[in-house]
Each structure stands twice: as structure tokens, then as C-alpha cells.
């Protein structure tokens, strides 16, 4: 057994062969929690071999550029593994962040979870 895991920042569910991830935190701002979220997301791909991922943002109210960096890095890893990533249920203010930074051009963003699951299946 490896060491005790750090506080779980993600809730992970399976929908067939698609992994749906919900964020525990409302504010993804702090350096330490962003680092942990990144590690836990990367583990899903690198450690557990999951290739079809949906990130559900319904709980998230704030998100900084450092958090965007982790999502971009995740997208790069998923692509490299031959998988797909989609984001859903993003509040308008947060979605605006993805649009301003043009990340909506490289990362699939849809409104509802079912559409997101279908888009990576």
C-alpha cells in the first residue's frame, strides 16, 4: 500500500466506460488545492488508465488561471493517451474564462453531463 491519500478533491463516478469527475471545492484558487486536484486528475489517466473523461463543473464558482493550467495539462495527457475529455455544467462566469482565453477552441465544452458523456464515448 502506498501512503495515506491526501484529502479527496474529486468525486469520481463511472458511466459505462466514461469517467465522470465532480469537483468537491467551490473555489479552485489555492495553490495547494490546485496542485492536489492536478495530481488526482493526472492519476486517473496515468495511473488508472482512464481515457474517456468528463469534468462536471456544477459545483465550481471560482477558478484561477493556475487551475486552467491543470485542465490544459490534463487535456494534453488525455490526447496523448488517445482518449477524449469534455467539460460540462460550467457556470456562465467560469465559462467566460474559457472563452476569453480561447481554451474553448481546444477543449470540448458542452452544457449537460449526458451530452458530455456521449461526446467522449
Amino acid at each position, binding site marked *: 500500500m502506498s501512503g495515506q491519500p491526501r484529502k479527496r478533491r474529486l468525486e469520481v463516478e463511472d458511466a459505462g466506460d466514461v469517467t465522470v469527475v465532480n469537483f468537491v471545492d467551490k473555489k479552485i*484558487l*489555492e*495553490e*495547494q488545492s490546485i496542485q492536489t486536484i492536478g495530481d488526482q486528475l493526472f492519476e486517473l489517466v496515468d495511473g488508472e488508465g482512464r481515457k474517456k473523461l468528463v469534468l462536471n463543473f456544477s459545483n465550481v464558482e*471560482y477558478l*484561477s*488561471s*493556475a487551475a*486552467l*493550467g*491543470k485542465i*490544459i*495539462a490534463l*487535456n*494534453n495527457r488525455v490526447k496523448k493517451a488517445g482518449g477524449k475529455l469534455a467539460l460540462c455544467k460550467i457556470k456562465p*462566469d467560469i465559462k467566460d*474564462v474559457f472563452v*476569453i*482565453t*480561447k*481554451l474553448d*477552441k*481546444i477543449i470540448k465544452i458542452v452544457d449537460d453531463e449526458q451530452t458530455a458523456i456521449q461526446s467522449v464515448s
Partner: protein
Amino acid sequence: MSEKAPHPEPVGKDVVKLPSSPGHARELQDRIEALLVQTIATDRDRFCVRLALEEALVNAIKHGNQMDPGKSVTVRFQVFKDHAEFHITDEGPGFDPDDLPDPTDIENLERPCGRGVMLIRHYMHEVEYFAPGNAVLMRRFFQKAP
């Protein structure tokens, strides 16, 4: 008799010296949030201020001061009924904000960093950097687009 020009009083102002650790930035954010509810700021305004302030503080602590515990970040803020302004200075060497790669260029889109200054400029109505680039003044006027 000439009329006196109106001189609005801020609902809160202070000069705060923060150690170079993100935990202290959080306390300041909570203070600002408590002041913003006493203004005409909308939910959107509060979101914009919080995000821009977060990016500016992270830039100052992480990139400016390199998380050096011997260095601090000075934040001078004034929150008025209709706008808020923040002057943030770190002890780093500074940078040229006009010489950053455009994070929205196609070749930079997959880079995981370099978006903080862009977001600050988007979410604040006025942003000014001072030479040598280790100080920034930013303002947001409430109930004004975007």
C-alpha cells in the same frame, strides 16, 4: 460661495503587507469580499474583482517574490460604493507586461501557464503597471460592462 466638490468616502481602505504565502492572500480576499457587499457591486463585479485580485496576488507572491519568505507583497486598497482599486507591489525584479507571449495564439493555447495578466486586463477596467514592472494598479467600476 463655490460648492465643495463631492469627495466620496471609501467603505474601506487599508495598506496591508502580506508575507509571500498564499494563505495570507486568502484572508485579504475575504476582507475585500466583506467590503464589496456594502457597495453596489453585482455578483459579476464580485467575481471579476476576486479573480483579478487572485491573479495579481499569485503573480506577486509566486513570480515576483518567488515565494521567498523574506519578501512581502504590499497591497494598498480602497473600496468605494461604485468602484474598487488595488495597488499591489512585490519585491521582485519586475517584468515587462507588454512583452508576454499571447496565450490565445494558436501555438500557445496548449501551454499551461501565462494567462494571469490577460485575465487581469479583462476583468478590471483600468490596469497600469509601473516600472520596473513589480507594481500594478487596477480598478473596476461596478455595474459597468463587461
